[in-house]
């Protein structure tokens, strides 16, 4: 009966280079996090639907749901940050917590040819009552990228409060906010022009220009200065400028830009946001930011910031070289398999992969070395 079922999506053979690189990246980056005092935490692979959906950050269609034997609706892990925040809401002590984690994330799609996807993510989350951890988290994000030896990446910083504050200062009507925010997020200039066509010219000019307010922090400030903006808005950009200057002093070679038109998909972001792009991959490598609101929703008054790195995407552009392995084919005699396996074990090492082969017609093209095993040889 199962023959008639199509293959479930997600089966993939990873090359040795690929998984070695991913393992090396996870190990190395976790070590970096450890030096900053982060404890490793493992989020659950199954979460309550009510918990995952409470913040409104995830579309219900993007979660893979099922009913457990107790009748609760559960979802495969879709966002470990939400699980962690829920965990923190149950803690009696609100002292500083710094977590590092590696987690599998499952997503469902309704509009794409793929129906399900699971990705591996490495990241950190900081929960704190006092202090300012934006700089530490950003620094660790850059350190992880430096460790991975990635080139030509753009680190984009934004402030999720900027666009709402701008729209408020321009007295945009409440009913227009969702569609206008969406148009700004998509940098959809025709839609912006259409939506604000009845507003004063000055308002129209600012909103048409805002989608170009990205680039180096100096460039952005120059663009913004041609409009008279409120001090609150300028303060948000100054906050980013201070952060970038602090990072620049840590000898980072990353291309750091600011995007004032940032409107994050996850509605829980509340301040600084960071996204890292590379020319070589369509998806962002890293994504994160401040999410104080989500923890406030649980009744706790704490600040929270973190980021996640897509491990496969990072590996695909990382220049890290895992140790080279030699593939050795041991052509064995079917009459004496035990002898072949015993001999193979003596040959195996951290740099040698031994393939015991009984088939005379096996494809040996991928082998670096071939040993034909005959009793007379041993």
């Amino acid at each position, binding site marked *: 009966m199962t023959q008639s079922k199509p293959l479930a999506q997600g089966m993939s053979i990873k090359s040795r280079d690929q998984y070695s690189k991913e393992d090396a990246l996870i190990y190395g980056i976790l070590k970096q996090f450890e030096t900053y005092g982060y404890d490793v935490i493992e989020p659950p692979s199954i979460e309550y639907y009510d918990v995952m959906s409470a913040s409104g950050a995830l579309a219900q269609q993007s979660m893979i749901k099922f009913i457990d034997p107790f009748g609760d609706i559960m979802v495969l892990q879709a966002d470990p940050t939400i699980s962690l925040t829920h965990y923190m809401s149950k803690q009696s002590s609100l002292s500083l917590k710094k977590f590092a984690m590696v987690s599998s994330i499952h997503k469902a799609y309704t*509009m794409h040819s793929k129906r399900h996807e699971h990705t591996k993510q490495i990241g950190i989350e900081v929960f704190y009552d006092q202090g300012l951890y934006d700089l530490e988290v950003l620094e660790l994000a850059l350190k992880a990228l430096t460790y991975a030896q990635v080139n*030509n990446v*753009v680190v*984009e910083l934004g402030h999720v409060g900027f666009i709402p504050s701008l729209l408020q200062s321009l007295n945009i009507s409440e009913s227009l906010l969702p569609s206008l925010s969406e148009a700004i997020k*998509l*940098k*959809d*200039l*025709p*839609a912006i*022009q259409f939506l604000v066509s009845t507003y004063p010219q000055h308002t129209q000019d600012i909103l048409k220009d805002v*989608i170009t307010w*990205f*680039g180096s922090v100096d460039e952005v400030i120059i663009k913004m200065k041609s409009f008279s903006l409120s001090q609150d808005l300028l303060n948000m950009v100054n906050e980013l400028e201070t952060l970038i200057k602090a990072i620049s002093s840590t000898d980072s070679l990353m291309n750091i*830009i600011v*995007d004032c038109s940032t409107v994050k998909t996850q509605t829980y972001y509340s301040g600084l946001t960071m996204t890292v*792009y*590379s*020319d070589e*991959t*369509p998806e*962002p490598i890293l994504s994160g930011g401040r999410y104080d609101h989500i923890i406030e929703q649980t009744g706790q008054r704490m600040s929270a910031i973190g980021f996640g790195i897509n491990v496969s995407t990072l590996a695909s552009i990382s220049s890290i070289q895992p140790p080279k392995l030699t593939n050795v084919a041991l052509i064995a005699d079917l009459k004496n398999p035990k002898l072949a396996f015993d001999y193979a074990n003596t040959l195996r090492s951290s740099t040698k992969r031994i393939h015991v082969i009984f088939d005379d017609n096996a494809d040996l093209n991928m082998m670096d070395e071939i040993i034909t095993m005959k009793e007379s040889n041993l």
Partner: protein
Amino acid sequence: MITIALAKGRLAQKGLKRLTQANILFTEYDEQSRKLIFESDDKKARIVFVKAMDVPIYVANGIADVGIVGKDVLLENNEYVNELADLGFGACRLCVCGIKPLPTDRKPIIASKYPLVTQRFFNAHGIDVDIIKLEGSVELAPLLELSDAIVDIVESGLTLQENNLSIFTTITTSSARLIVNPRSYKTKIKAMTPIINAIMQGDNV
């Protein structure tokens, strides 16, 4: 090098004309050629010819950095791209058309190249319809009674007239849009700016 995705036809011709006006030249380009990729003379850009419906897909996936495509295609595609400008040419309407009014005693059948737009439109009006996706000559569907009506692009209305079809309602208007890949727009902004400016600022000739 900046990659520009175009669909062969009028939108591509107008786009190329604007690039030429800005001295971004593709002298190697030949309209009659079956080649799908042409590099600019200065090797800083290349154009790739794809199906109109595929333009947003190439751009969203970062294979192309820039694209010119009709708004109708963007509405159907739902890909994540930045839509930087309404280029003002290629104006048309997306309409519901047919020979006789939609049946009320059964579920209407609508044929279209735009099933998502069709679904959204009828959903918004609380009408449950069956949709048949067609790839071309959509006007045939009501004539041969494959469907009760069609949702299709109307430019001059001449094709409808010649096939005895009339417009029931206009869903939306459409025109050519300049789209860019959101990541490229940030990582390659300097190289993309001359191309974006050329396409946005050229004449509609």
